[in-house]
């Protein structure tokens, strides 16, 4: 469950002796350390409008209760991406007693860049020199004592995967937290930049901006819009901004490059010189031979196709099997108990029946999607992420995705959509902007998930033939392409380019993967269950009270007139919102109600052309309630409604056209 950051941070600070923030670049073993330090009681919190989350937990160390905030992994503490913004905001809001900076010992210089930014913020720091085992394998020997001396902070060698050094790390952090006097760091930029920082710092010192004046001075010179706005709102703020601009121009004049760039350069220079003082010459990163196969076009593409096929078939067959298994067990063991209890308490009138719709059919719907598809997909996703393969995939598919205004990282959610749309849409969080996430989510809702595939197979393939069934997939593929290109054209804004670190292969750690999977799944359960529950009861209410049949007549111009389907078929489409495969089940049920038991053969009831159009419309139009729920949560209800409206329109349009083309050319 996502809490608001302010509340969650305050609570954790109030209830513990010390709070430590874990910071570091992506993929340095930060979450392994977090998992080792904390148990299962992790809460996630996010800032309004932001999707990058903070993990918070408490742990006991000796007699102390310690709160641990896991900041999102990022390369810097700016405001240029959401992960950076959230990390910085959380540090400023929470004012942790100590920031524990996790450094990748195999790539010290790059990792020191953000550490220097933390030093600029003036908060107490302890550094963990993690992946020290990997570094040794690559013959990188780091003098941690010298590093500690140069940085002026404690440095502890750790191996997150075995837990080595972690006790010492926390002990050092506690010792540092107990020091009450202000810390003074002796790390400095070049002479003239330092002078200019101090000059601006003096102007800031008399005012209270809730942040260390040196840090603020640097951020103003770095042209950080958020802090420029903060200062500008203050009395005398404008004159300080003017001064900052003047100083910035002077630096620019002197160095022939913009001040933010100059500061970044000096920071890199500082990081590089410290790194070179504590380690011998580092041989250039040897490219991982096997890993290179996954990005080289000749070998990478076949590997990618293979991996996607495995994911797809796992979700499709494995998920389907699990789903059927769960449904049958539910029907035998759980359903009778729930129904019996509800009818006993509420009687078997409308209320009882509606509650059964919700608590029996509804919960089953959520479970039948949740466990088989969502849980398995999260597991595979965590595996791909942690191994680093996801980045190779992004690299290979970037070009195609670019046509849709997306970049390579979008391919995994899009393919996953074929299993289940719900985790796929949550998976779009790997994309940076709302524009990209909206485009990707819209495309995902068009991808036939396993439930819709069941309808295509059960209605079209079985009764009409496999060729028309394949035709439906081809139509959908074409639509996904057209809609992707179209959205990229009409949606305001530009796609951001791909900039992504390619880290070397690391064997994923099962406990990390399981934890990651569980946290994400928990999130899904909290979002989807209530909505599926109430959605089911609402539809149940319509059905039980008979209002549903009254809906048939206003729908008939569209269903009968335009799509050429029987009116009752239209009603089953409404029910399919609950679960897409319900469309088929209800169709069979209705056929039997109207034509008796023999009507199991749908062809007695509908023509091949009608079955084709029916399956096509069912595939395209409005996704199921669980999907609607995540769309609303992930993109906001405005965008979610937009997508729903769009898919309904598209389905009716395409269905009608298909119906006419089939009739005109006598295709079926």
């Amino acid at each position, binding site marked *: 469950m996502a809490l608001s950051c302010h509340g969650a941070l305050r609570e954790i600070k109030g209830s513990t002796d010390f709070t430590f923030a874990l910071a570091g670049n992506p993929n340095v073993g930060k979450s392994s350390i977090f998992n080792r330090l904390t148990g299962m009681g992790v809460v996630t919190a996010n800032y309004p409008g932001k999707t990058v989350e903070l993990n918070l937990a408490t742990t006991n160390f000796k007699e102390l209760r310690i709160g641990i905030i896991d900041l999102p992994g990022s390369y810097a503490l700016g405001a240029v991406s959401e992960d950076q913004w959230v990390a910085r905001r959380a540090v400023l809001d929470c004012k942790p007693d100590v920031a524990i900076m996790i450094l990748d010992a195999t790539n010290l210089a790059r990792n020191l860049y953000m550490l220097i930014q933390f030093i600029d913020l003036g908060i107490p720091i302890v550094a963990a020199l993690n992946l020290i085992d990997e570094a040794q394998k690559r013959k990188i020997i780091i003098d941690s004592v010298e590093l500690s001396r140069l940085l002026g902070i404690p440095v502890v060698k750790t191996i997150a995967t075995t837990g080595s050094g972690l006790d010492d790390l926390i002990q050092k952090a506690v010792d540092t937290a107990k020091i009450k006097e202000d810390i003074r760091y002796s790390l400095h930029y070049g002479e003239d930049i330092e002078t200019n920082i101090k000059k601006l710092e003096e102007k800031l010192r008399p005012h209270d901006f809730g942040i260390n004046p040196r840090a603020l001075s640097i951020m103003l010179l770095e042209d950080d819009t958020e802090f420029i706005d903060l200062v500008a709102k203050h009395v005398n703020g404008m004159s300080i901004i003017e001064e900052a601009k003047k100083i910035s121009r002077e630096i620019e004049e002197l160095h022939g490059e913009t001040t933010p760039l100059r500061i970044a350069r000096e920071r890199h220079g500082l990081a590089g010189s410290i790194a070179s003082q504590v380690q011998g010459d580092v041989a250039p*990163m040897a490219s991982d031979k096997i890993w290179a196969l996954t990005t080289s076009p000749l070998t990478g593409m076949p590997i990618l196709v293979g991996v996607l096929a495995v994911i797809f078939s796992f979700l499709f067959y494995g998920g389907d099997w699990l789903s059927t298994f769960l449904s049958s067990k539910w029907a035998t063991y759980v359903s009778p108990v729930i129904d019996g209890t509800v009818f006993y308490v509420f009687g078997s009138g409308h209320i009882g029946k509606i509650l059964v719709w919700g608590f029996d059919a509804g919960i089953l719907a959520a479970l039948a999607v949740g466990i088989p598809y969502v849980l398995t997909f999260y597991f595979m996703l965590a595996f791909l992420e942690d191994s680093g393969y996801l980045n190779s995939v992004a*690299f290979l598919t970037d070009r195609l995705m670019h046509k849709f205004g997306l970049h390579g990282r979008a391919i995994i959610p899009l393919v996953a959509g074929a299993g289940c749309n719900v985790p796929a849409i949550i998976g779009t969080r790997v994309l940076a902007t709302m524009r990209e996430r909206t485009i990707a989510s819209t495309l995902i809702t068009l991808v036939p998930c396993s439930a819709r595939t069941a309808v295509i197979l059960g209605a079209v393939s079985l009764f009409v033939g496999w060729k028309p069934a394949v035709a439906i997939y081809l139509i959908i593929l074409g639509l996904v392409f057209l809609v992707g290109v179209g959205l990229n054209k009409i949606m305001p804004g530009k796609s951001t380019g791909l*900039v992504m670190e390619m880290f070397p292969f690391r064997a994923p750690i099962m406990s990390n993967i399981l934890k990651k999977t569980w946290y994400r799944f928990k999130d899904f359960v909290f979002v989807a269950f209530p909505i599926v529950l109430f959605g089911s009861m609402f539809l149940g209410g319509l059905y039980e009270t008979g209002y549903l049949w009254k809906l048939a007549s206003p729908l008939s111009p569209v269903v009968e007139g335009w799509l050429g389907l029987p009116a009752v078929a239209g009603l089953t489409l409404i029910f399919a919102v609950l679960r897409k495969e319900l469309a088929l089940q209800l169709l069979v049920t209705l056929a039997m109600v109207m034509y008796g038991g023999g009507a199991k053969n749908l062809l007695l009831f509908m023509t091949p052309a009608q079955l084709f159009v029916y399956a096509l419309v069912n595939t395209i139009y409005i996704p199921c309630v669980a999907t609607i729920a995540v769309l609303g949560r992930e993109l906001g209800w405005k965008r979610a409604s937009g997508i729903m409206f769009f898919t309904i329109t598209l389905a009716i349009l395409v269905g009608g056209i298909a119906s006419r083309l089939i009739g005109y050319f006598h295709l079926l």
Partner: protein
Amino acid sequence: MEADTPRIEEYLESIYKLQQEQHPVSTSRLAEHLKLSAPSVSEMVKKLANKRLVNHTEKGVCLTDEGSKMAKRVVRRHRLSERLLTDILGYKWDEVHDEACRLEHAISPQMEERIARSLGNPKTCPHGHPIPDKDGVFLKEKVRRLSELKAKEKAIIVNVFEEDPKMLQYLASLGLIPDVSILVEEVAPFGGPLIVCVSGSRYALGREVASKIKVK
């Protein structure tokens, strides 16, 4: 030498620099850069136009061929002076700018050549900017887009042309800044992204990002 020459040179140098970012240069921007009032700047611009060193239109000022040549000579003397100060007199490279601003107007063409010769005809100033030759011609280096490089090619970043300041800063925080050497490791076909190595880290860059990075 006219009494006005240092002032004229100062103007030409400023216009020359500002032309790199704005063409033509507005008089208000010029006044801001020279830290002078707008009326005195427009008066001086009129004088320069009379001498046919600049063209003055409603949109702003731009250098004529002759003005441009003169400006580049000033740039040359400025950067040579900086070299002289650091290499011979032992100044630090961040202390030389103001001294060079005074020296650049006092150096005769003959002295200019002597300095150049005794310094061994340096190609760049201490800050890494190119020094034009005595005809005002910059040594042309073959500058290409990063996206034009092939796999296994090495280069040095010259500039990053990115309008979005956030992206620019993001790239800077990753170490993609001018004067840094970069190795292209892999190029995806059909206009796909590149894998590059920069200071010990490996990144995938989309083609559109890579095309904004100029390298030599």
